[in-house]
């Protein structure tokens, strides 16, 4: 059902965990299937210096979470914000059509984490 790359990420997911002093945290849940994902980013000089995820979901959800973290680690915040769910699926070498839905969490969670990071930055600047 899944290709080797997806299974490899499912079996050895990169960047699992949480960042206690994260600069941004993003969460997404699928109303429909029920998969949920939480993403933590640490930003330094406008670059994503560290990123970690937690996912409650199927193989596609876990693999795409892992893939996303690998894709955006080290990128600038603006670069990272360009990554789409489709990019993640492509980078995984494709997903079964009915599982695309489950992979759509990852880039959304990142958008939320970046928004949260920007939110914090604005608040700090206005102190």
């Amino acid at each position, binding site marked *: 059902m*899944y290709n080797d790359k997806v*299974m490899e990420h*499912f*079996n050895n*997911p990169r960047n*699992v965990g*949480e960042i206690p002093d994260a600069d941004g945290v993003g*969460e997404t849940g699928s109303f*429909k*299937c*029920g*998969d*949920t*994902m*939480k993403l933590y980013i640490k930003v330094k000089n406008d670059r994503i210096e560290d990123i970690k995820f*937690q*996912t*409650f*979901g*199927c*193989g*596609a*959800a*876990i693999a795409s979470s892992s893939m996303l973290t690998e894709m955006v680690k080290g990128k600038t915040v603006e670069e990272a914000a360009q990554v789409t769910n489709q990019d993640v699926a492509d980078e995984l070498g494709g997903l079964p059509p*009915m*599982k695309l*839905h*489950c992979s759509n969490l990852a880039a959304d969670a990142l958008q939320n984490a970046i928004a949260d990071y920007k939110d914090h930055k604005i608040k700090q600047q206005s102190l």
Partner: protein
Amino acid sequence: MKSRLVYMDHGATTPVRKEVFDAMIPFFQEQYGNPSSLHTPGRKVRQAVEEAREKTARALGAGAEDIYFTAGGTESNNIALRGAAKERAKPGHIITSSVEHHAVLDVCQDLEREGHWVTYLPVDQDGLVDPETVKEAITGDTFIISIMAANNEIGTLQPIREIGSVARDCGILFHTDAVQVVGQLPVDVNDLNVDFLSLAAHKFNGPKGIGALYMKKGVKVDPLYRGGSQERKLRPGTENVPGVIGLGRAVELAVSEIPGKQKKLEYLRDRLIEGLIGIGDVVLNGHPQKRLPGNVNVSFKYIEGESVLLSLDMEGIAASSGSACSSGSLEPSHVLSAIGLDHPTAHGSVRFSLGFGNSEEDIDYVLEKAPPIVERLRSMSPTYHAR
């Protein structure tokens, strides 16, 4: 290193056992006559088909003339329900349950589009239909009641005898989808008060694509297909002879072995349930006692079923899940919803269905492999950390 296979998906299908396979073989190349032919080769095959019918009848406490061979559980259900509906001059009312297999539910939905109306009875948290609710749902227009003998996902056994006597008292046809029960537990159609009963050979170590419908003498339905006079016109078309022979042999063997097999499976089932619950935050779905001998259905909280299945598969363990991600429809199974599971709990459901070949070592193996899998997936889960 020989990789191990622990097959625990007998609710989906079972392997054809050797005795059954051996019985079928001659009917491909040696005894290939058409059972409807008058010549000797044809008549010989006719005799074998009728012997298989007798074996099937005996396994159900029925008469041979009440057994009709079909292409499996789905077709048996369709012939009974659609056939009974087609037999009527005008639309009427059907009673079924909310936990039926799609081979009943989708037929009912289709009949609704044709003008019939359907009551989908609720079940309690263990998946049981209350016979009282059946009685209350009956109206002057009710023409058939269809309640499954055992649920394929959570294994809950329904009070078929009680529901059957309600139907009988009211003079309403009663069908039971016994696909999961035949060959696992004793079945007697007279004791159960049923007019129709569906079974499929591949669930009890027979071949796929062959089943039977028990239809009580005197009951009339309009056939779905038109054609020859095979199966007394209820299911026209040249018989799947090797399948019929395989079904006869499989049902004969399975039913004769029930006493020992039931005890063994119940023992293995309860050991597996106990061991899995011991992992912690694992709940049993379905009735604790009134359940199929080989059915284990649990929800591993905070994790998702498909990811558990993938991980089990890598250890050579074959199971199934009712989670939204594994259903292909993005919805958790209708059965898990009907027993009131919240979405996250339904998301973590896994079914292990035991059968013929499973041993105590298989249970030990699953109980050795499952805890680290659950632990690994939980360590990744945000809801586990937030609990």
